[in-house]
């Protein structure tokens, strides 16, 4: 048996030293004693490209470096623009038109940026996923709890993604079984690359289709003057502050960041191999993702705003019904793009959410967990991912299954699961033993804490309102 390579003990604080710090003596001492895996080789290949590009000066190498390092941030933000979220934006546009909710959505994505930036620092500094850090730093109970909590929430969310996929393709006359099986096929084909980089590029390509809502919005001919006024003045808010408005506000704030987003982005950053030198690009990646997701969200609201002007009730619309209702206003192509957007939103989210479950399982169960693994070496990782997706897809096809109730349960579990997730995130990012100098400065901590308190508070109030619908009325809402 070979003697294992003993990595140098971490310096206090940041968990690793740069590869360039390694001395010739270090490498010579390794000789044939080192253990190298397929995962190491693939990650090293990606890192070599990053290092070579970083060494060159000029605009084009900078641009290439950005291209090499983007991914997790864009995927997580566009992944959060999932089926239920896009339906929620569509319903908001149809109910309230162009007004208060446009700048409000921008604000929610800014809050998401603040939270997700913390996962960028954590992943780059420790090279470990979120579930693994919770397990190591807070013990097995909280590690397993976080993983199980995440997987239950993810499974139910996946069901809603397959509902969106079914509804989106349903507009084109595709049968539910065919729609769901096609989605599973796409998910499996992306995995067959056994390479994080290739997988990421394929999903990024798919995620960009989230922007199909932009041409749909243009076909709806929005009043740009009204859009500009709404973004500046946060008005109008038709009907004023009512219990319904408060509920929509709480639901939107509570759904700004969901647990899978924290786990996915940090694990993806570790899998991609980002280091502390890449944090700046990781932040840009997150900000770009948030900007693209904001544009898609605003476009969806603008696309359905004509329904508000025609006083159409759309509260209980599903994706295909929105597309059909919009068809007389934006034409067949516009409606088809809307339905295609719903399919894409569900598809990308199904892939990223099931991947976050597989990462968390591997990190807590101490099993190999990487998209760089060949199937035979990462059986448990790929099986968790596929079994969860197949089970959720199968559930959607069962006749008479109470899908509306499942969606409600997803919302309740998502908001209830957030306080522990955000508490762990906040404690980890301020843990000087693992973060060293990368702990947040006081002003950033104050901002992050404020966002965390707002998210947790809004989520809990929303949860209470779902369980006890009259509770908000007792607090003074109309």
């Amino acid at each position: 048996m070979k003697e294992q390579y003993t990595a140098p003990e971490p310096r206090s604080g940041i968990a690793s030293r740069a590869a360039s710090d390694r001395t010739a003596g270090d490498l010579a001492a390794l000789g044939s004693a080192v253990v190298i895996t397929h995962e190491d080789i693939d990650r090293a290949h990606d890192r070599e490209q990053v290092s070579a590009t970083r060494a060159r000066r000029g605009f084009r190498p900078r641009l290439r470096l950005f291209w090499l390092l983007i991914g997790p941030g864009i995927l997580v933000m566009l992944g959060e623009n999932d089926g239920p979220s896009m339906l929620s934006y569509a319903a908001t546009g149809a109910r309230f038109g162009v007004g208060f909710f446009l700048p409000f959505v921008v604000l929610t994505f800014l809050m998401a940026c603040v939270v997700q930036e913390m996962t960028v620092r954590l992943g780059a500094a420790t090279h470990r996923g979120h579930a693994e850090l919770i397990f190591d730093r807070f013990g097995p109970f909280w590690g397993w709890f976080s993983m199980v909590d995440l997987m239950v929430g993810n499974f139910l969310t996946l069901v809603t993604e397959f509902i969106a996929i079914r509804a989106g393709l349903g507009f084109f006359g595709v049968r539910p079984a065919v729609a769901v099986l096609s989605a599973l096929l796409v998910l499996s084909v992306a995995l067959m690359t056994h390479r994080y980089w290739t997988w990421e590029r394929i999903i990024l390509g798919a995620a960009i289709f989230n922007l199909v809502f932009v041409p749909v919005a243009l076909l709806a001919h929005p009043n740009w003057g009204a859009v500009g006024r709404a973004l500046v003045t946060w008005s109008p808010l038709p009907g004023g502050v009512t219990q319904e408005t408060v509920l929509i506000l709480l639901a939107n704030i509570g759904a700004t960041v969901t647990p899978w987003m924290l786990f996915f982005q940090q694990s993806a950053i570790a899998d991609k191999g980002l280091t502390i030198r890449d944090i700046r690009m990781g932040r840009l990646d997150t900000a770009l993702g948030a900007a693209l997701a904001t544009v898609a969200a605003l476009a969806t609201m603008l696309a359905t705003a004509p329904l508000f002007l025609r006083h159409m009730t759309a509260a209980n619309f599903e994706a295909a019904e929105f597309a059909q209702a919009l068809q007389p206003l934006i034409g067949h192509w516009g409606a088809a793009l809307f339905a295609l957007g719903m399919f894409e939103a569900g598809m990308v989210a199904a892939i990223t959410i099931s991947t976050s479950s597989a990462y968390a399982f591997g990190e807590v169960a101490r099993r190999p967990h990487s998209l760089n693994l060949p199937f035979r070496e990462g059986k448990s990782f790929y099986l968790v991912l596929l079994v969860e997706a197949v089970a959720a897809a199968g559930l959607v096809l069962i006749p008479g299954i109470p899908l509306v109730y499942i969606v409600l349960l997803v919302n309740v579990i998502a908001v209830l699961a957030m306080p522990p997730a955000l508490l762990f995130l906040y404690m980890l990012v301020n843990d000087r033993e693992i973060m060293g100098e990368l702990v947040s400065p006081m002003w950033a901590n104050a901002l992050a804490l404020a966002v965390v308190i707002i998210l947790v508070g809004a989520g809990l109030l929303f949860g209470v309102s779902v369980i006890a619908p009259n509770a908000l009325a007792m607090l003074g809402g109309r």
Partner: protein
Amino acid sequence: MGKFDSAGEPDVSGAMSRDEVASVITALEPDQLIAAKEKHHLPRRRLTRTEIVLFWGLRIYLMFMVGVVVYQIWTGAR
């Protein structure tokens, strides 16, 4: 084969030249290597008194959360 077999990822360094092994090690930070990650887990955090109180609060919240979800499922089933 190395110790890391137990985790399911086999050692492939035997099929690599010394230069290839060195290039992999140089490209990665020390704790990015899977073998190093397996060997060096982060130590358990020592909690302050405030954090202990916070974690007890979280346990109580957890019971509330389980209750709410069970209630939701029960009312849904009815």
